[in-house]
């Protein structure tokens, strides 16, 4: 510190001082100033020396005089900051103000040193801003920080960390407290090991754990820790501490919802799938993957209709999907039969709903298919039952009409003839009428017997079906008919497989075979020797017996519906009674079989009998 009058001699030294320094006397008049000081304030020496310093800076620093006075009277060092506007921008200067003493330690003025602290000041401001920003982030994100000084065994928590723990700001935690907050069990074990590892091995951690706060609330946190080294020596562990409870709870809830939805979709007894615009599957439930024969729904992802179905079905599905996505009209409960690649057809009730993007265009569709095959089968069965019932009913009504008609025609004859008899005078005519009455009576008797037989066939369910060798049965009937066949010069060709067994009522099969064989010969074409061929075949588990003749044939267009009717005859033949085929048909149907006929006039007739092995 230069002192007293020596200054004068040292003026050139002051001039060259490396810092911006000015000397003022007790009247605050500038006595000396270094070149640096001039430069700093962009002043000339003549403008400064002898001028009061507080006047030089009146604009910016009105209380400069007070400060200087203060400094002078108390004889203390003072530092203050001055803010200045400079053409280039904001400037900050720091003034140091020291008493100027002579050799007798008397204050003769003040030594003022000025330093440009703008840069420093800016850095400070930024730091402050940064710090407050960090605090905001930390507050909002609930991210706190902490540091454990290993050397000092001191744990420091920031205010946010403390807030998360729900402890007061003045709480001073130690490392045991820190670990103690973690929930017993998994969380505490993990953090203990992590801290231990970090201290011994020097590795960091990042864990999602649970703590129990000071107020007893259980919350999820993310704890991070990083070892800090100094000269290769571990001195501390530093880290962050974040409250992620809301996030974890939301995540857990979302996951639970997702799981619920998945469980629901997977366990619904419906096939559910989502397809993209190219009809590729992007979501499939278990029922759909089971139906398509995949063990896991994920195997179906990305698969298109043509990957999963035969081309005709795939095309049909593609068209359907495209229509729905083009028109945006949902398809609801459409019944469709889909054949899978194994060839099995399943009937579904299908609903397809277009999925819309935010612009209202379809970006896929969701499909729901309900397998109603079983229902359909039941419906089919029921319909068959109804058909059988109505057929039975029809047969019954038909039979009632037959009975009524036949009895009526006979009784009508009786009453008519009896009326004649009463009025008849001629003995000859009386005899004639009585002869006719006897005839009518015989006819009525025969009709009743026929009707009885039909009733017996239709009601006698007690007759048991027995496995019978068809070929042998034909041979037996053929033998019984030997005389008849011989008299007609008829040939029987028995091509029925030797081991074919049919389940039939033995009495019926004989009557059936007898009737068909005699008919085939009886209605022969006069110019041909009758030939009857019998052969067997199989279809849908039923045995078919074909009986083919070369006889007259019959015009089925005219008589088809009457062929098996009662008392219907089609040929002028003395033995035609119109009862044989009616009874035969009843016998076949009583054994749950059926009979069909094809014929060509002049060529011959083929009857096919279907035998049903069911009881």
């Amino acid at each position, binding site marked *: 510190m230069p002192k007293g009058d020596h200054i004068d001699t040292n003026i050139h030294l002051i001039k060259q001082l490396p810092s911006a320094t000015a000397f003022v006397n007790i009247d605050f008049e500038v006595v000396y100033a270094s070149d640096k000081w001039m430069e700093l304030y962009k002043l000339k020496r003549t403008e400064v020396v002898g001028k009061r310093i507080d006047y030089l800076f009146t604009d910016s620093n009105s209380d400069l005089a007070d400060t200087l006075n203060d400094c002078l009277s108390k004889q203390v060092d003072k530092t203050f900051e001055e803010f200045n506007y400079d053409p280039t921008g904001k400037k900050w200067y720091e003034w140091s103000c020291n008493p100027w003493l002579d050799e007798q330690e008397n204050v003769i003025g003040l030594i003022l040193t000025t330093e440009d602290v703008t840069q420093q000041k800016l850095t400070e401001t930024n730091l402050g801003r940064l710090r407050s920003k960090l605090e905001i982030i930390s507050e909002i994100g609930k991210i706190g920080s902490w540091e454990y000084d290993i050397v000092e065994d001191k744990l420091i928590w920031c205010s946010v960390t403390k807030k998360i723990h729900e402890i007061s700001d003045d709480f001073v935690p130690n490392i045991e407290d820190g670990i103690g907050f973690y929930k017993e069990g998994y969380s505490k074990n993990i953090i203990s090991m992590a801290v231990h590892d970090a201290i011994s091995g020097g590795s960091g951690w990042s864990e999602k754990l649970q703590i129990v706060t000071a107020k007893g609330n259980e919350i999820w946190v993310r704890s991070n820790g990083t070892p800090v080294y100094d000269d290769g020596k571990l001195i501390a562990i530093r880290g962050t501490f974040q409250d992620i409870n809301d996030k974890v709870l939301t995540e857990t809830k979302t996951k639970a919802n997702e799981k619920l939805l998945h469980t629901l979709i997977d366990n619904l007894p419906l096939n559910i799938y989502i397809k993209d615009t190219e009809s590729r599957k992007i979501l499939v439930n278990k029922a759909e993957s089971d139906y398509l024969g995949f063990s896991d729904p994920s195997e179906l992802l990305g698969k298109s209709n043509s990957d999963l179905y035969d081309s005709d079905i795939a095309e049909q599905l593609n068209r359907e999907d495209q229509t729905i996505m083009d028109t945006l009209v949902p398809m609801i409960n459409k019944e469709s039969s889909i054949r899978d690649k194994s060839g099995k057809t399943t009937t579904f009730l299908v609903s397809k709903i277009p999925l819309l993007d935010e612009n209202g265009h379809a970006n896929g569709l969701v499909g729901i298919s309900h397998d109603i095959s079983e229902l359909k089968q039941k419906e089919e069965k029921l319909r068959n039952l109804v058909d059988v019932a109505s057929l039975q009913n029809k047969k019954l009504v038909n039979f009632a009409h037959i009975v009524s008609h036949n009895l009526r025609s006979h*009784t009508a004859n009786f009453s008519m003839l009896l009326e004649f008899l009463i009025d008849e005078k001629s003995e000859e005519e009386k005899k004639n009428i009585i002869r006719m009455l006897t005839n009518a009576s015989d006819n009525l008797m025969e009709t009743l017997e026929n009707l009885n037989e039909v009733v017996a066939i239709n009601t006698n369910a007690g007759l048991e079906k027995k496995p019978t060798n068809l070929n042998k049965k034909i041979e037996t009937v053929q033998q019984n008919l030997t005389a008849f066949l011989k008299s007609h010069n008829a040939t029987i060709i028995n091509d029925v497989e030797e081991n074919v067994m049919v389940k039939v009522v033995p009495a019926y099969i004989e009557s059936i075979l007898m009737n068909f064989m005699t008919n085939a010969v009886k209605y022969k074409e006069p110019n041909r020797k009758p030939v009857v061929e019998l052969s067997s075949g199989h279809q849908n588990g039923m045995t078919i017996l074909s009986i083919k003749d070369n006889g007259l044939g019959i015009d089925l267009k005219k008589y088809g519906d009457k062929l098996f009717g009662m008392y219907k005859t089609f040929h002028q033949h003395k033995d035609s009674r119109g009862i044989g085929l009616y009874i035969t048909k009843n016998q076949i149907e009583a054994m749950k079989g059926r009979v069909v006929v094809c014929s060509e006039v002049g060529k011959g007739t083929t009857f096919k009998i279907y035998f049903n092995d069911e009881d």
Partner: protein
Amino acid sequence: MTKINSICIIDDDPITVFGVRKMLSLVVDCDNISSFVNGKKAIDGIKEQLNENDSIPEIIFLDINMPIMDGWQFLEEFIALPVKENIRINIITSSIDAFDKDKWEHYQKRTDHLITYNHKPLFKKQIAEITKKTF
């Protein structure tokens, strides 16, 4: 007694044919009563009469259930024949099937011939009614 030129009975039951003939002999004067055992024989006979310009029957008694060609099939062919006169056709049947009655009404509408419907047995009174020349 009403004089009728020609009457035809189509029935496969000889007793009915006998009965109708007998009753006719009591109520009408007719020298030409023919009978056929089925529709086929009848229609063939009538066609032949038409071809030879013979007079065809004025009254026909027609059974329904007959072999070869039944009453309805006969009617179907008969109404298609070029017969100028209106013929009276009496269906006589022992059927009480409503289906047959519907068929009768159906044919009635399709032709100018008078078609009536009677159940067996037929009595003299009915025969007299049928043969009255009111048509």
